[in-house]
């Protein structure tokens, strides 16, 4: 197929680390309209979400098929749209997916999650779509939805959310979902051992977040890693713990886009300090675990970074893919071990990246 022909290997000698690692980049699919997430199917091929609202199936050879979604309340504009697609832990038998998206209208919207069922073989269809979570309150504007998701070892689902930009103080309010990470069951219920089960938003797992764009469960270390956008500076990498307050907007290394201070504090007692922070901002937009390292895809930074945990501190191992000069929306390490990267543009691409030392 054309896309396969287009799958040209670009052997890129990156000016990266002291080890002068090289990365190989291969195009799996192109002409994707602002792709946001990708999930590898066990039978081969990929599910890809486009922020503009389409769910696609892309075969290994780059053939694409639109999978019709039944999301009548999908709100797609600016930062709003279709976000993450994630297979359930028992996908092989259940064929169920969860999908996050922005739902509502310009005046009243937020992040929603549906659980749906994918047919067994192509041409794929989805059926039995059920809303399992709606972040509340519905708010105005089309910014800061979070929407990254990950499954924990107990098969509960973490859903990252955003502060809606103009509601930043609400990230400290435990009675709503703005600026939180929530933990729910696959049916959308709040587990009884959630830390704020008594509040009006019992789904909350952690709070004080601005706009979470990377979230992954590290089974080997039994840890949850997360990154979020700061404003101007102050992008953060955090280890998420149950009930943790991550400080936004009372403690931040960033300042507002206008140059004004959001808070005079960069750290406060009772607030979890970031394990790593990016100032100036690179806009980290995707997070994956690879051989114990973290891979971080950056939008504004237009690079893939590899961070390594050394002496309990995340340290930069290398910068990659800068030669592409492309905003990177997401990075995944698929069950097959393949590293998948999405570029962010109206002509976005699904790339396979290989490290070669």
């Amino acid at each position, binding site marked *: 197929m054309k896309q396969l022909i287009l799958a040209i290997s670009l052997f890129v000698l990156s000016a990266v680390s002291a080890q002068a690692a090289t990365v190989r980049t291969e195009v799996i699919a192109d002409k994707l309209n602002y792709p946001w997430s990708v999930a590898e199917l066990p039978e081969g091929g990929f599910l890809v979400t486009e922020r503009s609202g389409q769910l696609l199936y892309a075969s290994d050879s780059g053939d694409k098929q639109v999978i019709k979604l039944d999301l009548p309340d999908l709100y797609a504009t600016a930062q709003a749209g279709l976000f993450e697609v994630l297979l359930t832990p028992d996908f092989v038998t259940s064929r169920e997916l969860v999908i996050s998206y922005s739902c509502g209208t310009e005046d009243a919207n937020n992040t929603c999650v549906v659980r749906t069922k994918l047919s067994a073989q192509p041409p794929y269809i989805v059926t039995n779509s059920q809303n399992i979570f709606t972040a509340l309150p519905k708010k105005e504007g089309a910014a800061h939805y979070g929407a990254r998701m990950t499954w924990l070892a107990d098969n509960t689902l973490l859903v990252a959310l955003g502060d809606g*930009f103009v509601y930043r103080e609400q990230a400290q309010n435990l009675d709503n979902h703005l600026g939180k990470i929530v933990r729910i069951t696959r049916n959308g219920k709040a587990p009884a051992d959630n830390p704020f089960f008594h509040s009006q938003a019992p789904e909350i797992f952690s709070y004080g977040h601005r706009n979470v764009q990377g979230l992954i469960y590290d089974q080997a270390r039994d840890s949850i890693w997360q990154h979020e956008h700061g404003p101007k500076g102050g992008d953060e990498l955090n280890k998420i713990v149950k009930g943790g307050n991550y400080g936004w907007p*009372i403690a931040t290394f960033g*300042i*507002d*886009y206008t140059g004004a201070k959001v808070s005079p*504090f960069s750290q406060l007692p009772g607030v979890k300090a970031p394990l790593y922070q990016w100032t100036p901002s690179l806009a980290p937009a995707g997070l994956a675990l690879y051989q114990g390292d973290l891979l971080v895809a950056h939008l504004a930074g237009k690079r893939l970074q590899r961070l390594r945990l050394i002496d309990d501190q995340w340290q930069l191992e290398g910068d990659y893919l800068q030669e592409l000069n492309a905003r990177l929306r997401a990075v995944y390490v698929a069950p097959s071990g393949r590293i998948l990267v999405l570029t962010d543009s109206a002509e976005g691409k699904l790339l396979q990246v290989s490290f070669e030392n």
Partner: protein
Amino acid sequence: MVRMFVAFLSAVVGAALVGTVIQTQFNLAEITALTVDVDMAMRMDTIIHDLLHFGPVFALMLTPTLLVAFIVARGLSLWRPQFERGWFIIGGGLGLACTFWVVDSLAPMPTLIAANRTLVGFLLMSSTGAFGGWIFDRLWHPQPRELAEELPA
């Protein structure tokens, strides 16, 4: 001409200074409302930071705004000269309010300046444009009684 230029520069700088300090108070009020104490030294540090970093951005926003607003105010002054001071004050205030609206419509974020998220903040920040209008006309066309004011010894 020099007088007009100095008056305009003073209007922009004066409005930028006052507007900066106002927005800082709004931001700090939001932080203290979250039960975080901000002492006076920290408040002063924040004001100084904002004067150095937010102030120039706000001045850039004010410059074209007041330029257009004052041209319109001048036109209205020719029509009703007895209200000249008022035209400049209203022009500066309305002009800045319009600029906030246009910027918020065009910028990716719903509200660029955090202090403008509330009606009170929006009105107070817009009033700095009115203050700029007052400064400009006070310096450009001082009224006879203002010229008669004695300078402090």
